[in-house]
Structures are given as structure tokens and as C-alpha cells.
């Protein structure tokens, strides 16, 4: 029985307690201190001996609240805690049938003191120095408080007290304490977790402020994202912190309930008007940590679609969350591809999320059932963006285009279009071909990209970087390869390209310009007839 274990541990504590001061006397030889502590111990003993000495609790509480002598105050706090633990264990605070009025009064009084003490503990919890002790004490008290049986003699979890504790914890940004709480209690005990989630969602939903403070958001975010992995079975939930009757513990120990409460906590956090930065943080862990908690991921839809519609980098990050919903929940995102198409703006190939985005894009467009016109729009749009993109982006886009061509052979008209109609042919001969692609059109089905040609790729074949140019040439080669493995091309950067160039050792003597120019910085003699180079024309060297 856990209760007996507790009992013994308490006894041990008590047995040890008197020793402490004596040690201290030796160490510190502070008589006054010793006296006070001895006095506290005496008071404590008296309380436990007889009901008549209950008034000592008030004295001890007074001592505990004493701000002048913090050490004694801490000692007194611990002492009061012990007293209450003993009292709670002995059932002195629980109401029983057939008690006399006087006894009821005593119990009422004791309960009043207990709540005083709780307040005191919560105060301590708000103070950085004593928070750790206060946390331990309050959690112990929390455990003992379960013993106060209700009228029906059934123990319940002291939700209110936990909510207060959690409230204090998240309102102050003491990262150590929060981490301690998460590691020691939240991660370990299923019941604490469950009710803490509940408390969090209550606290967040009762807030009236229009926007959430950074600290509060960070605290809640940290606490909720403490679990990077969602437990998959009831066994993984952990043990119980307090003894609860079978019926209740069943509720606590069910994965469904846990998920439900966690979901509501997350939802409460998502519903707060978080700013852009906070949203980014949320979105980044969305697919991995948040969404798996949800029993009804549909609830995430609002948040995700809002973020997705927000545009810019937020949309990019939200994309993976939306994709999760589409994949796992069969979310029907109206005009998803249109939205995706609109993400292809001039920033995308310069963004640091580029490779992540391209990976997702590759997934979205991997279906062979997509209409060719839509695929063509994506191809055309991305190749056009490549005209202003860094080489590392071009290197990723071209093989992707190749893969799409292989998957949608209809699109290959974009690189090979023989005009059969004589009239049209003559018209093109005379006026040149107008690019039918409509850049402004937002619907990828309507852009007429499929009627256009990829002149951009041909231009990239004369890219200054030889490797990029070589890769661009695969489009005009025969399509003999089945597909290119995108992973080989996605993660490049200027630096990796330069590094690759510089890591090759020079084996054969490089070619040196044959002619040594007469002038480099200074203008040539007009008489010599040599042409000045570009610098001399544009710049003044002095």
C-alpha cells in the first residue's frame, strides 16, 4: 500500500528532523538559530501530540511568513508542511459521519489554515530562490491532500490546487523550475499530466487579454512541447502520482483522455492571438509534435488554413501541417493547388525553406493523375523564377522538371513544339511567337503554360556556372533516364558549390590567357588601337 509507505517515509523524516538542527549547531554554532529551530520542532511535536495544541499551527505559519529571517521561515514552512502531512495522513482533516459539531469546527479551522498555507506556498513558488523547495512541498501536499475524502469517502484529485500551482508556474518565466516540473511530474505521472493539461486549457481560455504575452506563451509552449513524442499506448503513459480509486484512475490512465486534454490545451494556446513569430514556432513543430496529440485534427484546420493563407514564409511552414492533415485526415483543402501555386513567388527560391518546400512540392506533384495543364503551370512558373535564382536553386529545379516531364509526357510539348498548322507557322515566322503563359493568372489551370515553351531553361543552359549549365542541358537531351533522385540536388548552396570547386586539386596546368594585356587599369594609348577593357570604360582608377 502506498499510503503505508508514505507513512514510514514520513516517520523517517520526522526521526531525522531533530537531528538536523543539532548538526547545524555544530556547523554554524549559531545559538539563536538553534533555539528557534528547536522551538519550531517543539511546537511541531506538540501539535502532533494533542489536538489542543493546534493553535501552534498559527504560530508556525506566522514564523513561516516571517520575511526577516528567511532561513527560519523555510524551516518553519517545511515544519508546517510536515504537520499537515501528518494530519492529512491521520485523517484529521476529513469529515466523517457522526462527528460532533465541535469537531467539525476544528476541521473547518484546520482547512482554513491549510488554505492559508497553500497560499503561502504559492507565494514562495513565485519567488525564484525558494521556488524549487516550494514546488517540492506543494507537490507533496498535493499528494497528501488526495486523502481528504469527500463526503462519500472517495478521494479525488485536488485539481484546484494543481491549477493554482500550474498558474503560478506559467505566469513566471523561471525556466529551471518549469523544466523541473516537466521532468519530475509532468513527464512521469499520468494524472499530473492530465490535470495539468486541463488546468492549462482552463487558464488560457479564461484569459481576456487580446494578445498573449511572450513569457506566458513561451512557458505554455515549453510545457506543452515538452513531449516531442506522443505516447502510443496506455502503458506508455506513466504511473499515478496519487492514489485514486479504480474508476478515476481508469479515466486518468486512458490515452484517449490524455489526448483529449492535451488537445484542448493546445487548442487554447492556438486560439490565443499569437503574433507571427509565435505562429512560426507553433507551425514548425506542428506536424511532428502537435498534430499527433489531436484526436480530432480537424480542429487544427482553422489555425493551419489561417496560417497558410497568411502568405510569405508562414505559408511555407504551414504547408507541412496542411499536408499532414491532407494525408492523415483526408482534409479537403479547397483549391489547394491554386494556393500552392500562389506560393511560388519571387522569394521562394531564395528562401531558406527552399529545399523543404521543394521536397513537399515534389510530393504534391508526384501524382500522375494531375492535369497536365496544372503541372505545366508549375513547371513554367518555377523555371521562370529560375531566371533570377541562385545556382543552388536552379540545380534543384531542373531535375525536378525532368521528373515531371517523365511523369506527364504531355508537358514535353513545352520543350518540343513543332507547328503543323501552316497558317500558324507563317504567323509565327512573321511576328515571332508570343508567350501564351499568363504570369498574373492565379489559377494554375488557366495559365496556358502548357501552350508555352521553356525558353528559360534554354537560357540557363548558358549559365555562368558550368555544372548548372550541364544540368540544364538534360532537358534538351534525350529523356533516357527514368528519373533523377531529387535528394542529390536539393541541398546545395553557394558555399557547398565553391567548396566543391576548391576541393578539386589542380593536376594539369590550368590554361593561362595567352596575350598579356598592355593595360589593365589604365586606358590604352589611343594610338595603339587596343580596346580598353570593361573596367577602364566604367571605372576611374587613380
Amino acid at each position: 500500500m502506498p499510503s503505508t509507505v508514505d507513512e514510514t517515509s514520513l516517520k523517517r523524516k520526522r526521526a531525522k528532523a531533530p537531528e538536523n538542527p543539532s548538526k547545524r549547531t555544530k556547523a554554524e554554532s549559531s545559538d539563536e538559530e538553534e533555539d528557534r529551530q528547536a522551538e519550531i520542532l517543539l511546537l511541531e511535536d506538540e501539535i502532533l501530540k494533542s489536538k489542543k495544541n493546534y493553535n501552534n499551527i498559527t504560530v508556525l505559519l506566522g514564523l513561516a511568513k516571517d520575511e526577516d529571517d528567511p532561513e527560519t521561515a523555510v524551516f518553519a514552512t517545511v515544519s508546517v508542511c510536515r504537520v499537515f502531512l501528518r494530519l492529512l495522513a491521520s485523517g484529521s482533516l476529513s469529515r466523517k459521519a457522526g462527528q460532533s459539531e465541535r469537531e467539525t469546527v476544528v476541521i473547518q479551522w484546520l482547512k482554513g489554515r491549510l488554505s492559508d498555507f497553500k497560499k503561502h506556498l504559492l507565494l514562495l513558488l513565485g519567488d525564484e530562490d525558494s521556488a524549487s523547495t516550494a514546488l517540492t512541498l506543494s507537490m507533496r501536499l498535493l499528494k497528501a491532500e488526495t486523502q481528504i475524502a469527500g463526503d462519500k469517502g472517495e478521494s479525488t484529485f485536488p485539481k484546484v490546487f494543481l491549477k493554482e500551482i500550474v498558474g503560478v508556474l506559467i505566469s513566471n518565466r523561471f525556466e529551471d523550475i518549469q523544466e523541473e516540473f516537466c521532468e519530475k511530474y509532468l513527464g512521469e505521472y499520468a494524472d499530473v499530466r492530465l490535470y495539468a493539461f486541463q488546468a492549462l486549457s482552463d487558464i488560457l481560455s479564461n484569459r481576456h487579454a487580446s494578445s498573449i504575452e511572450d513569457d506566458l506563451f513561451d512557458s505554455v509552449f515549453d510545457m506543452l512541447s515538452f513531449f516531442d513524442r506522443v505516447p502510443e499506448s496506455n502503458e506508455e503513459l506513466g504511473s499515478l502520482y496519487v492514489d485514486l480509486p479504480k474508476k478515476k484512475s481508469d479515466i486518468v490512465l486512458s490515452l484517449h483522455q490524455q489526448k483529449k486534454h492535451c488537445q484542448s490545451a493546445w487548442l487554447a494556446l492556438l486560439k490565443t492571438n499569437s503574433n507571427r513569430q509565435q505562429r512560426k514556432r507553433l507551425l514548425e513543430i506542428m506536424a511532428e509534435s502537435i498534430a499527433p496529440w489531436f484526436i480530432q485534427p480537424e480542429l487544427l484546420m482553422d489555425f493551419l488554413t489561417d496560417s497558410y493563407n497568411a502568405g510569405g514564409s508562414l505559408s511555407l511552414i504551414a504547408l507541412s501541417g496542411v499536408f499532414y492533415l491532407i494525408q492523415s485526415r483526408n482534409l479537403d483543402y479547397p483549391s489547394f493547388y491554386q494556393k500552392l501555386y500562389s506560393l511560388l513567388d519571387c522569394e521562394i527560391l531564395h528562401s531558406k525553406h527552399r529545399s523543404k518546400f521543394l521536397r513537399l512540392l515534389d510530393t504534391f506533384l508526384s501524382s500522375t493523375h494531375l492535369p497536365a495543364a496544372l503541372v505545366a503551370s508549375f513547371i513554367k512558373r518555377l523555371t521562370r523564377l529560375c531566371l533570377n535564382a541562385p545556382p543552388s536553386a536552379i540545380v534543384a529545379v531542373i531535375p525536378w522538371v525532368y521528373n515531371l516531364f517523365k511523369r506527364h509526357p504531355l508537358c514535353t510539348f513545352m520543350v518540343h513544339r513543332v507547328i503543323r498548322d501552316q497558317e500558324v507557322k507563317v504567323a509565327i515566322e512573321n511576328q515571332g511567337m508570343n508567350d501564351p503563359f499568363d504570369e498574373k493568372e492565379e489559377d494554375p489551370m488557366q495559365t496556358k503554360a502548357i501552350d508555352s515553351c521553356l525558353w528559360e531553361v534554354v537560357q540557363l543552359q548558358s549559365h555562368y556556372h558550368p555544372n548548372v549549365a550541364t544540368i540544364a542541358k538534360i532537358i534538351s537531351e534525350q529523356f533516357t533516364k527514368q528519373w533523377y533522385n531529387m535528394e542529390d540536388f536539393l541541398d546545395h548552396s553557394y558555399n557547398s558549390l565553391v567548396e566543391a570547386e576548391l576541393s578539386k586539386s589542380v593536376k594539369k596546368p590550368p590554361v593561362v590567357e595567352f596575350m598579356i594585356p598592355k593595360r589593365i587599369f589604365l586606358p590604352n594609348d589611343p594610338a595603339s588601337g587596343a580596346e580598353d577593357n570593361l573596367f577602364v570604360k566604367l571605372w576611374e582608377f587613380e
Partner: protein
Amino acid sequence: MPGSQLKRLKASLREQGVIGPQQSKKQRRKVAQNGKVNTNKRAAALESIREEFNPFDFKHNARGPKFQVTSNRPVLGDAAKGITGRPGDAKAMGEERRRQTLLVEMNRRNKTGGIRDQRFGENDASMTYEEKMAQRFVREKQSHKTSIFDLEDDEPMDGLTHMGKSLSFPDRDDFEETDLLDPEGSDSGDESVDNQRGLKRLREPDDMEDQVEENVEGEPEKKKTKQEIYKEIIAKSKMYKAERQAQKDADEDLREELDEELSDIQALLFTKPKPLSNEDDESTSKPGDSGRDKMERDYDLRLRQLAMDRRAKPSDRTLTEEEIARRDVEKLKELEDKRQRRMRGEEISDSEDDKEQNVPDAQSAAESPGWFDEDEEEDFKLGTGIRTRPTATDLGFDDEDDFIVEDDLLASGSDLEPIESGDEDSSAEDNEDDQDDEFTKGLLSEMEAHDSAFSKEGDITKNETSEISSCPETLEQLLNISCNLLPEQIPPLVQKVRILYHPKLASENKTKLASFSRVLVQYLFHLSNTPNPPPFATLESVIRHIHSLAKSFPIDVSEEFRSRINDLTSRCLSPTLGDLVILIAIGTIFPPSDAFHPVITPAMLLIARYLGQKIPKSTTDFVQGVFMSSLALHYLKLSQRFCPEFMNFCLNTLTSLAPTKPGKKLGNFPQHEPVSGIRITDATEIEVRRSKVTDCIVIPKSGKEDLSIKISVLDTTLQLLDTASQFYAGKPSFIESFEPVVLALDHLTKGSCKSQLPAVLVGHAVQLQKRLQTMLAVSKLARRPLELHHHRPLAIKTAIPKFEDQFDPDRHYDADKDRAELAKLKAEHKKERKGAMRELRKDANFMAREKLRIKKQKDAAYEKKYKRLVAEIQGEEGREANAYDREKQARKRAAKRG
């Protein structure tokens, strides 16, 4: 037609004389006389006829012979007659072989020991007994003498000695026993000697002796003992050694002789203009045969001189001016051709450069109609890319602009390994002939030809050069030397070093100059990075010197430039003046149009990186950026390659320096929001001037100066775009690339901007815009739909079997090589297995037959013995019975009588 089988048999029998016309009695008697021989002959003839006529002794193909066409191999011998085997012969052969091996083994079964008869000629039936004996005797005589104490040894050799004196009898003659003891008159003296010396041998049994003799004589080679063989070998090797020694000694003698003569030869070789007096002395000292001696020596001398003389070569014809010009044009054309090829990225296989290095580069790999392999991605030479590392977000960076920061964290140090000196040497040598080129010669101005440009300066610093104690091989050394010099004196100093340490003067100068060329690159960087950089004329001539050195030491110079580039990667976005000068130097020293170039490619990447990632925050940044843009254009001038970053930067410069923000998006380039206060305002009064390079590093002091720099930046950008538009006019996407430029220019020349910019600049912008608009119109007209895939269609894999010209039905044509091999092996195994089983079966048959035969023999012998015994007994008993009967009869008779 030979007729029927019977007729043929008769004919052949008659032919052999087995049957014939009736013979007369006389004839028959005659035949009977040499009867035995005849019967033998007859039997042989009959055997052959039987063989010939037994149709079952040949194996024929069951369905008759194959047609000729079924095989492409010529049919020979038996196969031509349709005979595929001779079972009779084969059986006989097998039987015989078994008798020789298996039967022997069978007989020796369960037996150990035995005598091997190795007597000479024992098994040779062709030898008569006498011959055998004679041979044996010869062998015996030839047998070795094993020991000097061998009593049977007939020759005494030195015999026994005592105190060095021979104990042998002085002569054999004094005790002639031969006559006494030799009764037969001794056909051979040796035998008589045998008889004389020891009788022991005589007592030995004859066959024993025979055997010993046989042993000696049977196989003479084998009978050499090991010891003997070794002795022989040792003797041989000693002999060779002695020979070698002798040869060596002879050589040594010869050499010594030559050495003695060396002084004379030397005298001949080196003291050509020998003072006459010397000769006179000699002549005086040796008045005798000096005349003849001298003549001979003179003759030798003359001969040698003639031998040493170089043959006269026909001199090159003096070329006319036109011819020289044509040659120059051709040379230039060739160079241009080479450049073009390098620009296209084709591998140049120069006769001198790289015959062996025809490794297909990525481009040719991509160009070849490739059956691409899965692993061909490597061929793009992109490098490993960013190693799987946390994205920038994880690291906490949040600027939208790419991987700059994290990459810099990971930028490795110098990856360049020094290249072996041997390589350098060879490469330097390769370029030796280049160096003799007239242009270089002029620049080098070794001893004789002083170029006017350098000779003047050379005079000035004549005294300084004497201070150069050694070739500067580190930057510090060069700095020590040059610290007190005026900037103008630096190029002469460099030139002096190059002259003093010209590779032709000493062999180690080559390496010295190689490291000097490296130092010079560092020096150039150092020089332009100093707070007060020397005038550009100085830098220019240093660059030209590096260029000239690069021709001799291409690897060293390029390595050094590459390490500069490597340094630059870390501070790519904030280059110093030194970096810019280095980049210019790279652009002039190396051909920037090359598709793949170990120095140009990374340098260009760095320039593009600056243009792509730098977000200009100050005026200086803009100046630097515009300078980088002009560098990029310079690099791409000849090849006219496309640089997206260049366009981006120019467009961004136009939009961010414009006095007002453009109302709408101008194009697909990522537009940066300019820092406040960077826009040009109120600059109508500012004069448009050319940008100065020094603006790249010097921060403008006053607002006006700042404005004028900005205006010059704008103006330069316009010029750059103008140049670029000419480069890119023919590109297929010219319209898409330059439409944003037109829009930006439109914005610049419109109301709100126009009023704040100098009129001249606006004029330039308008001009450029007009020009661009015409170019765009032209480009639109010239645009045609793409037809990139006019490739030869790929063949579909055919299922029709391949036709074999030389089809051979005996062969298996399996396309799958492994399977064919396996089938072959299996067939072979099966055949062998069957053969082995057949052999075993035959062996068993043979053994059974043999056993039966032996048993039969045994039985027969037993039977015979039995019968004999029975007969004997019966005979004996019969006699007894007779005797009994006789006795009985006799008794009966006696009784009758009696």
C-alpha cells in the same frame, strides 16, 4: 561398283592368296615346306580381311552420313567416310590397357615386396643374348669408382701411401701372373686383372653380378648419386665464377689503361687552343718521333672535332611581311579556336598538353546520347552539397536570405595541397617554348633586349638590386626588401628578381621563381590592402608580371590564386580592395570564357554569391556591388553566359536607389527593402561622374559626396545593363530577363523620380530604355517555339533473334553468357560421368573375366592333377589287382595242381 559383299570377300581372299586356283602337287609341297611362315601370314591376312568386312567393327551414324552443310568445319579422315568410331579397335585397346594396368594391379593385390627386374635389356626382345652381355659389360666398365680403398678397383690410382710415398709396387710387369692364371687367353685384360687381384669376385654367383651390373648400366642418368650431382654443380659454378673473375680482371685492366690515357683525352678535349709554345716544348723534349706523334694526334683531334661539329642546317627562309602577318593571324585563329572549344567545355587534346587526359567530363557525358546509369549523378560534379545538417531555422537564423551564415561556420580551411615539384617542373618545361614567344621575350628582357618600358626603371634601381641577396620565397622576405621602396620602384624590383633568377641561369632557379610567383600574388593582395594603396599603374605592372610568370608556372600561380579565393569565401560579403584586385587579376590572367577552369569557376561563383546574397546597407556596399557586377560582366564578356545574380543586383540597385518606391512589383527578382536614407533625394544639381574604385573602401564624408557616389553608381549600373543587354540580346529568354529592367527604368524616368535626379542621368536612362524596348521588340519577333528534341528516335528493343552468318548447329547460341557457360559445364560433367561409369563397368567386366580365367586355369590344373592322381592310383591299384589276380590265379592253379 564393287559388287556384292560375297564377291568382294572372294576377291580379297584371292588377292591375299588364301584361296586361289588349284595348285599342283609340286606347288603344294613347296608351300608345305615353308609351312610355318605361311600359316602365320595366312592368319594375319585373314584377320585383316575379317576386320575389313565386319560391318559391326565400325560405328556409323544410324541415319547415314550427315550432309556437308550441317557443319562449317572441314570433314577429314574417318569422318569423311561416315565412320564415327571403331568399337573393335577401341575394345581391343581398352583390353590391352587394362591388361597392362588393372591386371597388374590385380595380380599384385594383397602382396607386398617383390623383385624389380631392372637388368639391362631384360625386357628388350630385340637384343640377342650376346648383345645383352656385351652391353652389361660395357656398363660395368663405365661404372664409377666410389672409393680409393675399393679392393675391386682395378686401377691403383695413387694407391696406398706411407709417409707420402706410394706403397704400390713399382711395376706390374715384374710379376707377370697373367700368363699363369689366364687359361682362356683372356679376351679382355680387365677380366684377367679381376682374376689377378681378388678371387672373391669369382666366387660370387653369376646372376648376382649381373644384377649389380644391370643396376649400374640400366639407366645411366638416374644412377648418378646426389653427391655427384652436387659436386658437378659446384664445379660448374666454380668454373663460371672463375671465368667471370677473369673477365672482370680483364675489364679492370682495360679500364686502368683507359684511365691512364684519360689525361691525354682530356687534353685533347678541353685545351683546344693550346699554346704553341707547349707543343714546341714537347717537340723539343722529344725530338725523335715527335713529328709522327704530333701528326697522329692532330689527326685524332681533327677527327674528333669533325665528329663534334654540328651539321649545317638550312636557315629559315626570311619571311615577307605578308607571310609574317598571315602566320600571326593563323596563330591567333588557332588560339581563338582553342578558346572557343574550352568555352564550350570540350576537352582539348593538345599534342603537348593532355593526350592522356581524355577523361570525359560531365558535359560530354551529358551530351553523348547516354543510357544514363543510376550513378551518373555524380557526373554533375556538384560536390556533396550541404551535409545533412540542421536548417538555418534550427540554428536560430531567420533572415530569409539563404544559407550564408551557417555555411560560413562550416567553411573549411585551405583544401589545397601543394603539388609535387616534379609536376611543376614538367609543366614549366612544357611551357618553356611558350616563353620563347616573342611577346614574352620582349617583356622578359633577359640580358639583351631591354624593353623601353622596363629599361628606364631598371636604371633607376640599379643600386637597389645589388641588395637582393636571395630570391624572396616568402612574403616577409619580399616585404623586407621592398619596404623602403617607392611604389614606382616595385615593378623594376620584380623584374630584377626575375632576371637574376631566370631559370636558364641555374637549375634551382626554377623552383625559386615558382615560389616567387606565389609570393608575388600574395604581395599583390598585400599591396592593395594597405591603407594607402600604391597607384594602379604599379599594381597593373605587378599583375602583368604575375601573368608572365603564370605562363611558366601555371600550377603555382593558380594554386596561390585558389588559396586567395579560399580566403575570400569566409569574408565573401565584405571584400577588401585587395580581394577586388585579385579578382580583376584572375579575370585578366586566366581566360574567363572557359567552361571549366580551376580558378575562374570558383572566382565567378564568389562574385555571383556576393551579388546574390549581399543586401547593400550603405553607399559603399552599392559601389562594391556595382564593381562586382562589372567584374561579373568582364568574366562573362566573351562567353556571354547568363548570370541571374547580376540581373538581380542591378535591378535591386535601380529600385533601391530610386528616389521613390516603385508602385508595383517590377519582376520576379527578390526585391530588398532598402535601408532608410539610402534613396537618392534632391540630386538634380549633382554632376554625373564616373565611379571611382576607391569608393569601394572609402566611406563618403559629406552628404553631397555620398549623393554624387550614388548617382555615379546609378549611372554605372545603367551602363552595365546596357552592356549586358548587348551580351544577352540573343538569349532565348531575353524578354523575361529584361522586361523588369524596362519597368524599373520607366519608374526612374517617371515624374516623382525624374524630378529628383540629374537630367543627364535621366537622359541616359531614357536612352537605355528606348534601346531596350527596340531590343525587346526584335527579340519578340525572333522568338520561335522550342524544338529541342529532334533526336534520333531511340530503338525499341527487338525480339527477333539475331541472325548468325556463320551458324554452326553444333554450337549453342545462348545470348545469356552465364547460362551458356553453365550449360557447357553441365554437358561436360554429364559426359565425363557417363565415361567414368562406362570405364568402371568395363573394368568390372574385365576383372570378372580375368578372375574367371584364373579360376578356370586353377580348376583345370586341379582337374589335371586329380586325374593324374586317380590314374596313378588306378594304375597302381590295377597292378596290385593284377598281381592279386595273378596270385589268385596262381594259387588257384596251385591248388588245382596241388
